């Protein structure tokens, strides 16, 4: 990995670990892996300065397949792990990856509060509207009338979770939607997301060919958003509340300053702390 250790002239494939993914043949996550490595190579960040953080799920296997630092944590806590890392190590490029279940079901609270906190990191969610890893249950983004969910045989009957709207309402600073069917477009968006200060959410429609084979059609249904990204939350909200979830591209670019407590000592000798206790 000699030249992987210098940030120069790195090809996309050099960001791959070489470990064979467990994904089903045809899974959208393969393409997302490609987009991510392309993006990193596009940015020419040395792999040792990147950390990919995830929870549990098919999509959450991502870190293992990259040659960067990685953390495959527990289910639903990727953003908390990533926040701790970023606050402690502002010098690193921190990217969280995962699925709709990991991020919006069990991980929903960290999603809310990470958007609020707005640390300078990127969150790539491979949304397949299902729990793939556990073999096909409905996820928060699943449509209410999907009757193949193994725990919801007559459909969930409940309002799908709208990740981008919630992200906006909570304070995320960059919001984009991509489709795994467009590997290069997704790569470009990831580059923008990483470059944009603060918390960037990239939702990638990434088909689960095993439990949601109909999602193969997404590539036909998605289309670039008709308008440019806005920085006005109210306008962005109106758009997101009306869009059918199939417009791709950057939808919101805010300008809130990222959360980053500065880490500079105010005293040079820790013994000074003893003073307050002395009688």
């Amino acid at each position: 990995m000699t030249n992987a250790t210098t940030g120069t002239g790195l090809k996309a494939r050099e960001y791959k670990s070489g470990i064979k993914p467990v994904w089903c043949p045809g899974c959208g996550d393969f393409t997302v892996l490609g987009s991510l490595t392309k993006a990193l190579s596009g940015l020419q960040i040395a792999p040792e300065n990147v950390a990919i953080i995830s929870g549990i799920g098919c999509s959450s296997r991502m870190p293992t397949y990259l040659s960067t630092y990685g953390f495959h944590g527990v289910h639903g806590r990727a953003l908390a792990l990533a926040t701790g890392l970023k606050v402690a190590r502002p010098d690193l490029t921190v990217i969280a990856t995962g699925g709709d279940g990991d991020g919006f079901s069990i991980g929903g609270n960290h999603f809310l509060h990470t958007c609020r906190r707005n640390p300078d990191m990127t969150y790539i969610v491979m949304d397949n509207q299902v729990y793939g890893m556990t073999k096909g249950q409905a996820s928060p983004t699943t449509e209410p009338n999907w009757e193949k969910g193994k725990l919801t045989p007559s459909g969930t009957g409940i309002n799908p979770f709208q990740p981008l709207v919630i992200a906006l309402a909570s304070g995320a600073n960059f919001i984009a939607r991509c489709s795994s069917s467009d590997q290069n477009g997704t790569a470009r968006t990831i580059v923008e997301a990483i470059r944009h200060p603060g918390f960037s959410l990239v939702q990638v429609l990434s088909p689960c060919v095993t439990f949601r084979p109909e999602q193969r059609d997404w590539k036909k249904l998605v289309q670039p958003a008709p308008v440019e990204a806005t920085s006005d939350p109210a306008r962005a909200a109106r758009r997101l509340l009306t869009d059918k979830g199939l417009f791709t591209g950057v939808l919101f670019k805010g300008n809130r300053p990222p959360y980053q407590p500065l880490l500079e000592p105010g005293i040079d000798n820790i013994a000074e702390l003893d003073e307050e206790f002395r009688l």
Partner: protein
Amino acid sequence: MSRQSLSIALSGSGGSGVMTCGSMLLEAAGKAGWYGIMTRSAGPQIRGGEAAALLRVSNEPLESHDDSFDLVLALDPGSLGRFVAEIPLRDDSVIICDMAGGRRNATLPETAAREIDLPMKKMAKAVKGGRPNMIALGVLARVIGLPESSINRILDKALKSKGPDALEASRACVKEGFIAAVDLPAFTGPPIVAVPDGERWSITGNEAAGLGAVRGGVRFVAAYPITPATEVLEWLATSLPKLGGVLVQAEDELASINQIIGASFGGKPSLTATSGPGLALMTESIGLSVCAEVPVVVLDVMRCGPSTGIATKNEQTDLNIALNGLHGDAPHLVLAPTSLTDCIFTTQWAVHLAEAMQAPAIVLSDQSLGQTRAIVNAPADIAFLAKREVPEPGEEKLQGETYQRYAIGATGVSPMTIPGQPGGQYTADGLEHTEAGAPSSLYADHLAQLDKRSNKITGFNYGEHWADIDGTGDTMVITWGSACGPVREALTRLRAHGADIKMLAIRLLAPERPEDMSAALEGIKRILIVEQSHSKQFYRYLRAAYDLPGEVRVFNRPGPLAFKPGEIIEQLADWCGGDKS
């Protein structure tokens, strides 16, 4: 009558300022050269209910309240009732009470304790801007024999921000108190020997734990507030930034534990503090820190359980969950401070151990250690520092195809790279893995990594620190945490009467130390186990871990009623020929 230590209880209704009065009295005693402790007790009201400050002063360091109180001062007659159980009296005790505004709450136990009515409210009214609690301060100082000067030094310090009038009023009240106290029965306390400034500290166990953490090297803390751990966090929130560290208030305990794991993965020694309910929420992710081998320290300041229980009161009942609360086979460290000041050492040592072994360490403090304020000798700074084994850049293990993050090696501790180090990239994983960190479901890999994770902890050299052992003889008291204080005092008293008793205060609860323990148990014929738990958690732990020789007796009771030295002595009476106290 003269005693080697004096115990004073102060009670009042909400807003009467008994705590301020108590703290000032304690500090004054410290300034004068005494040691002391003060604990607080209050009703369920968030603010405005009855409150009591329980003080004890002596010319010997103190770790426990006494069996009974010498002096009780009630600013309001009604305020004593709720605390009777906590304020045992003797026939020669004295109760000073302002009877104005109500009849003295009748529920005091039957003693011949002498009662004196002192119109402190009325006296305060006579002073412009005066307050009854400052009158009480003067009264008490005089009665226990503290020089007015020492009180005034405290007032100056405490009130300088409040401006000259406030100071004047307080000084005047204190003087009034001194005068009024002249005809009160005086207690000749222990001799007063002045000590140079700075030689004594005034500190709580929670502050001590915070200090130990930063001394150990902790620079990242994420936490969610919870009683009685919050003061640790409050101290760290202001202290960490001075050191270039940071405290993040997380959205919940799931976030705090994972944030510190993330920060530690990034190379920063990290800690969180919580209490039982929070610890319960963290166990899944503490298991991640075991499997991914990312060091963290979790400080649990215990309170009465189960569930929300009694949030403000002491109990030693998170031992089970700390030792066995992780799913799967998850070897980790569990430690407990053996005294208030030891909260510094044990927390600092925990950081050192966690970092050295790349494993989570749970430190079990408790409400009693954490929220008691004590006047102690300035504690030494111990050399233990976070030292994580990191591969040198360019070391072989970094050459070749991939870095072997989870290499088995001789000790089970494998050098851990920090993000940013070229060639050291790996994926930390909660999935079982190969030495290179690739996920594996093979028995051979699972066994190898299970061995690694347990060997690194059982094989480590902990030296003498695993326990505090003192005394000789074939009778032993085994205890831990806040129960150590009353036990130590009981044994001191018994030994003063010639009894020969050994004491074992366990600091390192996990991993077990079979050799050390059998050495300690050499020749022991009788064992008394003391713990503040209804279900005998500590006794059951000892049974599972060690072979306990001879006759074993367990003195256990749930919180919140603290052990008194006299009770321990009773338990041992027949073993050392009658009550020697």
